[in-house]
C-alpha cells in the first residue's frame, strides 16, 4: 500500500512539472464553460451554466481518463515497466498506482473547473453535494481509466490506441445528457443517451442538485468500475508474466 503511494507520487511529480500539460488539460473544459455554457440560447432552462457544469465535469474526467492509458503504455515502451516488474513489490501495485493517478489527476482538473464555474455564476454546491459529486467522478474515473489502460495493454501500439480514443471520446460525449436533457432530444438519441455510461454520471450529479441521492446511478457506476478494473487486472497479469 505504501508502495502504491510512491508510484502515485512519481506520476504526480512528473505531471505537475510539465506545466504546459497541466494548463492544456484545463483549457478545453474552460472553453466549453465560457463559449457554450454562457452563450447557448436554450429554452429548457434559465441557467444553462448550472445545467452544463455537471456535463463539463464528467467530460473532463472522461477525456483525462481516456488519455491515461498511454501512461502505462509509455512506461512499457521506455523500459520503466521492466524495471518496476523486477522489483519485489506486488506487481499489481504498478497498475493500481496508475489508475489512482489518472483518477486523482482528473479530480484535480475537475476541482479547477468547478471553481471556475462558480466564478462564472453557477449555483454553489452544498458540502454534501460536493462530496457526492467527487464520489461519482471518482467512480467514473476508475471506470474509464481502467478501460483505457486495458485498451493500451491490448493494443500495444500508441497510434492505434490514440485512434481508438479519438473515435470513442466525441460520440460518448455528444450522445450523453451533457448538453441537453432527455426530453428535448430526438427519440433515437434518447435511446442511445439512456445506454451511455457518461449520462449516468452526469444525471447523478444533476440529481444531487434536486436533493435526490442517486443510489441506482452510484451503484451502476461502482459495479461497472469494479468489473472493468477486474478485466484490466487480468489483462495486466497476462501481459506481465
Amino acid at each position, binding site marked *: 500500500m505504501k508502495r502504491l503511494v510512491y508510484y502515485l507520487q*512519481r506520476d504526480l511529480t512528473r505531471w505537475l512539472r510539465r506545466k504546459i500539460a497541466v494548463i492544456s488539460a484545463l483549457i478545453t473544459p474552460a472553453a466549453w464553460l465560457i463559449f457554450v455554457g454562457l452563450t447557448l440560447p436554450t429554452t429548457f432552462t434559465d441557467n444553462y451554466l448550472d445545467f452544463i457544469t455537471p456535463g463539463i465535469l464528467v467530460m473532463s474526467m472522461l477525456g483525462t481518463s481516456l488519455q491515461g492509458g498511454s501512461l502505462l503504455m509509455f512506461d512499457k515502451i521506455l523500459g520503466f515497466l*521492466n524495471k*518496476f516488474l*523486477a*522489483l519485489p513489490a506486488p506487481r499489481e501495485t504498478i497498475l493500481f498506482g496508475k489508475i489512482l493517478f489518472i483518477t486523482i489527476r482528473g479530480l484535480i482538473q475537475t476541482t479547477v473547473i468547478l471553481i471556475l464555474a462558480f466564478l462564472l455564476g453557477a449555483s454553489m454546491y452544498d458540502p454534501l453535494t460536493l462530496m457526492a459529486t467527487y464520489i461519482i467522478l471518482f467512480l467514473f474515473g476508475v471506470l474509464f481509466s481502467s478501460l483505457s489502460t486495458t485498451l493500451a495493454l491490448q493494443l500495444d501500439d500508441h497510434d492505434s490506441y490514440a485512434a481508438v480514443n479519438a473515435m470513442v471520446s466525441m460520440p460518448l460525449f455528444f450522445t450523453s445528457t451533457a448538453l441537453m436533457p432527455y426530453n428535448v432530444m430526438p427519440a433515437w438519441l434518447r435511446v442511445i443517451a439512456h445506454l451511455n455510461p457518461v449520462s449516468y454520471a452526469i444525471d447523478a450529479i444533476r440529481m444531487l442538485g434536486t436533493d435526490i441521492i442517486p443510489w441506482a446511478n452510484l451503484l451502476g457506476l461502482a459495479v461497472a468500475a469494479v468489473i472493468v478494473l477486474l478485466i484490466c487486472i487480468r489483462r495486466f497479469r497476462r501481459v506481465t508474466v
Partner: protein
Amino acid sequence: MNVIETDNLTKYYDRLCAVDAISLSVGHEIFGLLGPNGSGKTTTMRMLTTLLRPDAGDAWISGHHVVNEAREVRNRLSYVPQEMAVDINLTGRENVALFAHLYGVENVKDRVDEMLGLMLLSQRADDLVKTYSGGMRRRLELAQALVHEPEVLFLDEPTIGLDVAARKNIWEHITALRDKGMTIFVNTHYMDEADRACDRVGIIDRGRLIAVDTPGNLKDRIQDDVITVRVSGKFDGRIDADVRYMGQVDDELMFTAGKGSEAVPRLAEALTGKGMKVHAISVREATLDDVFLRLVTSKTDEEGRFDGHGFRLMLRRR
C-alpha cells in the same frame, strides 16, 4: 549451488526457439553473455529476472527458483534494461529515492546519499535528470539498482550508446562491485569490452550457448594469427597454402596461420593463382571476434548457413 544456475532453460516465441536449452553456472564474477542482436541474450536475462516465464527448463538465483519463488528472486537481484529508463523530469535524488522506497529500504535518505556518492553523482543530485549526460544517466541507473544491496546485478548492454570515456567508467564501476562480492551478469555485443572486463564469457548464437570460458582460454583456442584479405572474385573455400580458411564477410576472406606474416606471400600467390585479385592483406593476433566467427562458422558448416552480414553489422556497431 552457485549464484546463478540454469538447467536447460528454454523459451519459444511462437515456433521460433529464442533460447534453446541453456545450462549455465555463474559464481561471484562478472559473467558476460555475448552474441549478435536477436541471439537470445535479452530473453535469457528476462527469464533470469522473472520477467518472462521459461517454456522448459529451470533457473535459480541464490538457490531460489525463478518461477516458484519469484518474489525471493526479485528481492536478491537488480535489473537494468538496455533502454535508459530514468525519469528526466525528476532529479537524480528523486529517481534513486523512488527505488529505495519501492524496495522498502530502511534509512532511505542516508542510503540514497550513499549510492549517489558511490556513483559520483552527489554534486548533481538535485538537478533534473534531463541535464545529465548519457554516462551520468547510466550511473544513476546503477545507483537505483544498488540501493537495496542486491546479490546479483543484471545489466543488459550497459555501455550501449555511451562514449569511450563513459564506457570505461561504467566498466570500472562494475569491476569495483565484483570486488565487493557482487555477482554481475552482463549482456553485450561489444566483444572487446567483454574481453577486458569479464571473468568468463558465454557465447550465444541463435539461442544456443556454444562456448563458455574465460576470454583468455577462448582466444587460446585460436593460437594462430588472423589474416584478412580483401579480394574481388569468387572464392571456393579451397586454398593451397599453409593457412586455414575461417570464413568470408562481404569481400573479406579470413584465414588463420601459425606465423601469419610468413604465410602472407604464399597466400597472396595462391589466391592470385585462382584468378582472384588481392586488394589488401592484414595480419593480427586473434580477438574474441575471431573466436566468435570461428565458433559460428564451424557450426555453420554443418548447417550450411552463416549470417555474415549480421556478424559484420555487429562488429560495425563498435
